[in-house]
């Protein structure tokens, strides 16, 4: 109980005092997760659409694979990216290990299957409704993917948000490929792990509270921006 009270007090004072270290950590977290998820969305949304609309060899296998990889453990992704980027790995010469870029790559890979698998289902449902109409109007499947991307934008945005939730909350991948280096690759989640292991539970919990608040604010912004967009486009 005392810990929780301390945590709340610490969290408030950190936030109200705009603690420099805290802001730095928040900035790294946001930068990594936002960039990683945006990249993942750019790749995974058309992929989801293609899996739903196009027929090509290996399609079913890819669908099963994406579905299975939705629950990919972050530490495993971290480990794989670590092996790829480490000095002796195939991408070692790029010198990306323990950088922000490495963390973005890891989170991007982590989220791609989730966005692809969930969006495929949305595309498939939409296609059931739109297929004959779009084909009649002259849109072949490749083109229709982009029409449906627009038609399903709100459902697909929710999928991207789910991806963001997974990215901002994970610790395994960024810890392994980022290294939790102070003032460089330390994120909210890796800082929480560190403070917990040091025994500073109050600070760890305070960071946790801030993380939850941050994720809520971002979700709220996206949710309400949808209403604003809808209001101005109709």
């Amino acid at each position, binding site marked *: 109980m005392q810990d929780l009270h301390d945590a709340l007090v610490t969290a408030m004072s950190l936030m109200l005092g705009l603690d420099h270290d805290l802001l730095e950590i928040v900035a790294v977290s946001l930068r990594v997760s936002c960039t990683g998820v945006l990249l993942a969305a750019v790749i995974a949304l058309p992929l989801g659409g293609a899996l739903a609309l196009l027929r090509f060899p290996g399609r079913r296998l890819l669908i099963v694979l994406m579905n299975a990889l939705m629950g990919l453990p972050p530490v495993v992704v971290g480990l794989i990216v670590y092996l790829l980027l480490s000095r002796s790995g195939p991408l070692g010469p790029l010198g990306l290990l323990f950088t922000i870029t490495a963390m973005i790559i890891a989170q991007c890979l982590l989220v791609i299957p989730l966005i692809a698998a969930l969006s495929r289902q949305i595309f498939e449902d939409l296609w059931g*409704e*739109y297929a*004959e*109409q*779009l*084909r*009649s*109007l*002259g*849109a072949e499947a490749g*083109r229709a993917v982009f*029409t449906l991307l*627009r*038609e399903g*934008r709100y459902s697909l945005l929710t999928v991207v948000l789910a991806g963001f939730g997974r990215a901002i909350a994970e610790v395994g991948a960024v810890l392994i490929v980022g290294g939790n280096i102070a003032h460089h690759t330390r994120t909210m989640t890796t800082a929480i792990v560190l403070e917990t292991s040091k025994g500073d539970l109050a600070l760890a919990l305070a960071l946790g509270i801030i993380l939850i608040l941050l994720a809520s604010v971002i979700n709220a912004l996206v949710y309400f921006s949808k209403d604003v967009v809808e209001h101005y*486009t*109709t």
Partner: protein
Amino acid sequence: MQMNGASILPLRLMDVNYAVREHTLLDQINITFMPGVRTVILGPNGAGKSLLLRLCHGLIFPTTGSITWMGKGADGSRRGQAMVFQRPVMLRRSVAANIEYPLKLNHVPRTERTQQVRQALETAGLMALAARNARVLSGGEQQRVALARAWVLHPQVLLLDEPTTNLDPSATRAVEEIAGTFHATGTKIIMTTHDLSQARRMADEVIFIHRGCVLETGPADKFFDRPRTEEARTYLRGGLL
């Protein structure tokens, strides 16, 4: 009126069968659609009218038999035809943007697009609704948008699949008037309906189908005055088939 080069008509269906698993849904269909006249495909629900139209449009393919555009311009048969569905799908955008969509798909230059959208809006009486979100319009308004959207590329053939089934009388009349206007500009109209009075109003030529078979084809007045088959006589009397 601008038409896209040589005619794609006539359209000939030869020995067309359409079956799903063991069930024959269309049986030995032989029809030739000629330009100029308004053809109404008439028959009770479940007769196979929609299937026939979708086969003609190339959305589905016959199990056996052939469907051929016989005209000199047959190479352009894809763009030369358009279809309006019983329940049209409106894209989540404005009425004007819905009508512009097929123009974009066909790479029509922007300046031309604006002008053609305007023309289609006027023809379908939609100018006042141009900026509205198409998804929230009434059924009748949506069907008018679908007509304008199908017609905006000036197809030679317009396939209408029970376009007024879900509409009230005034919306039905609006749709029939728009179809009449398209016909007057030289577009071949092929329409399905189970509504006898609509068939009387719209048809130059009737194709009567029942249980997947064509029972009668011919000029509308002849069909309505002297139907040759017992099924057609029953249907025209309003009896159950």
